C-alpha cells in the first residue's frame, strides 16, 4: 500500500513539475461568509442546519422587513421627540399642543 502511495506521490510531483506554471496559486481574498448561521443572541447554534429551520429570527427574509420597520419607527419617533422638546419646532408647526 505504501509502495503504491509512494508511486502516486512521485507521479503527482512529476506531473506538476511538468506544468509548474499551471499550479502557481494566485491568491484571492474570498469574501467572509455572513453570519446568518450564528444566532443574534450568540446562543448555541451548531451551524449544521440552516437558521431558517430553527431560528427564523435571523434569516434574510425575516431580517429585511424587520430592519426596515425598526428604522421607520426610529425616524418617526425621533421626529416626535424633536417636535416635543422644541414645542412644535419653535412654533413652525403650530398644531403641537401647548
Amino acid at each position, binding site marked *: 500500500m505504501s509502495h*503504491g*502511495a509512494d*508511486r*502516486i506521490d512521485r*507521479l*503527482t510531483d*512529476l*506531473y*506538476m513539475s*511538468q*506544468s509548474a*506554471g*499551471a*499550479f*502557481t*496559486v*494566485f491568491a*484571492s481574498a*474570498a*469574501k*467572509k*461568509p*455572513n453570519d*446568518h*448561521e450564528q444566532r443574534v443572541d450568540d446562543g448555541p447554534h451548531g451551524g*449544521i*442546519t*440552516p437558521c431558517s429551520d430553527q431560528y427564523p429570527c435571523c434569516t*434574510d427574509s425575516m431580517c429585511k422587513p424587520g430592519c426596515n420597520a425598526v428604522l421607520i419607527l426610529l425616524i418617526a419617533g425621533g421626529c416626535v421627540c424633536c417636535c416635543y422638546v422644541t414645542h412644535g419646532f419653535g412654533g413652525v408647526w403650530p398644531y403641537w399642543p401647548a
Partner: protein
Amino acid sequence: MKPFISLVVKPTLECNISCRHCYHPPEERVPGLMDDATLERVVRLASEEYETVWFIWHGGEPLLAPLSFFKRAVELQDRYFGKDSHRCGNTVQTNGVTIDRRFMDFCRDRRINVGVSYEGELNDELRQMSRDTAAAIDMMSRRGYMFSVSCTMCRTTAASMPDLYGYFSGRGINASFSPVVPIGCAASNGTTPDPDEYARASIETFDRWVTDSGSDVALLPHYLYLLNALGDPQPSDCQHTSCLTRWLSVHPGGDLYPCGKGRPPEFRLCNISEVGRLSDAFRTEGFARLLEGTVARREKCAECPIYAYCNGGCSMDAYHEGGLENNGGDSCRIYRQVFSHVQRTVGSILEDRPDLSGYNRYVRDAVVGKLVNPMITGQ
C-alpha cells in the same frame, strides 16, 4: 486548504435527446437521479477541503432533475460554504430543451451560469428537438437572461464555424466552439471533423472576430488563447489547464472519474462514499494509471514550442485519439494550428501598433492591458 477544484456533477445520465456525439453511449444513459445523501456528501467534502469550488452541472441532461434538486444543491452550498461567501459558483450545461422562465429566474437570482449546447440552424446535425431549444434561446434573449452557447462542430458543420459565429454575434450571444472528439457515441460514427478543416474554420472565425469592432461578444476558446499569447499566466480552456488533481466528475451513483468526458472503466477512481476527502480519489490506482500515461505523453511534448501553453493537452482526448501516451492526435493538431495563428496575430498587433479602434472590444482591452502592464511578459 487546497486552493481550487472544478467538480463536474452529473445529477443523472438520462437524456431527453440522443446527440450523435454524446460522451455516454445509449446503454449508459439510464434513468436515475443522484440521491440527497450523495449530493450532500459532494458539497460537504468539497467545502471542507477546497477554498473555492466551481460546480458544473452536466449529464445526461441535468435539467431532467427537478428544480428542487438545484435549489437543494444551492441550499447545501450556502450551509457548508457560507451564504454569499463567494467560495463556490455554478454552471449548468444543458441542451436547453426544457428551459423555462422559472428555472432562469432561479439561475438569475442565484447567479448561476447557464450554458446551452446549441448550434443554431445546424443543430439538427448532431441533436434533436431543435425547435424547443431555439424557442428557449429566443425566450432567454428576449427577456435578457444571461447565458452562453456551446457549439460542437462535426464533420459536416466544421466549415460553417465563421457563419455560426456571425449568427450568434449578431444576436449578442457569447459562443464557444469545440470539435467532436471520438468519445462514446462519436467513437466510430464518423462525426469527428477533419482536423485541418476544423483548424482552418477556427482560424477564419478568429480573424473575423478580431476585427469585428461592432461585436460585443467573447469568442471562446480563442479569447483565452489570445490572453495566453499576451502573457496571461492562467491556463486557458479545460483541455489545456493541466487539470489532473484539480477536476473531478461525480456520477449519479457517486462514482468519481477524473473528468466529465465519458466513463472509461480503467479510469474510474472510486465511489464518493468510500473516501473521507475528495482528494483521496487522486490516490487511487485508476488515477495513477492516468498520471503515468500523461507524464509519458508530456515528455514527448517537451520540445514543442507551444507546450508551455497547452500543457500537453487533454488526456481524455489523447486517450481516445490514439493512446494516452501519444501526442499528435486531432486535438493536438488543431490546437497547434489555431494557437500558433493567434500568437502570430498578437505578435503583429504588438509590433505594428495599429489603430485599435478597428478591433474587437475584447482584443482592444487585452492588448491595452498588456501595453500598460509591461510586467506581463509572456511564458
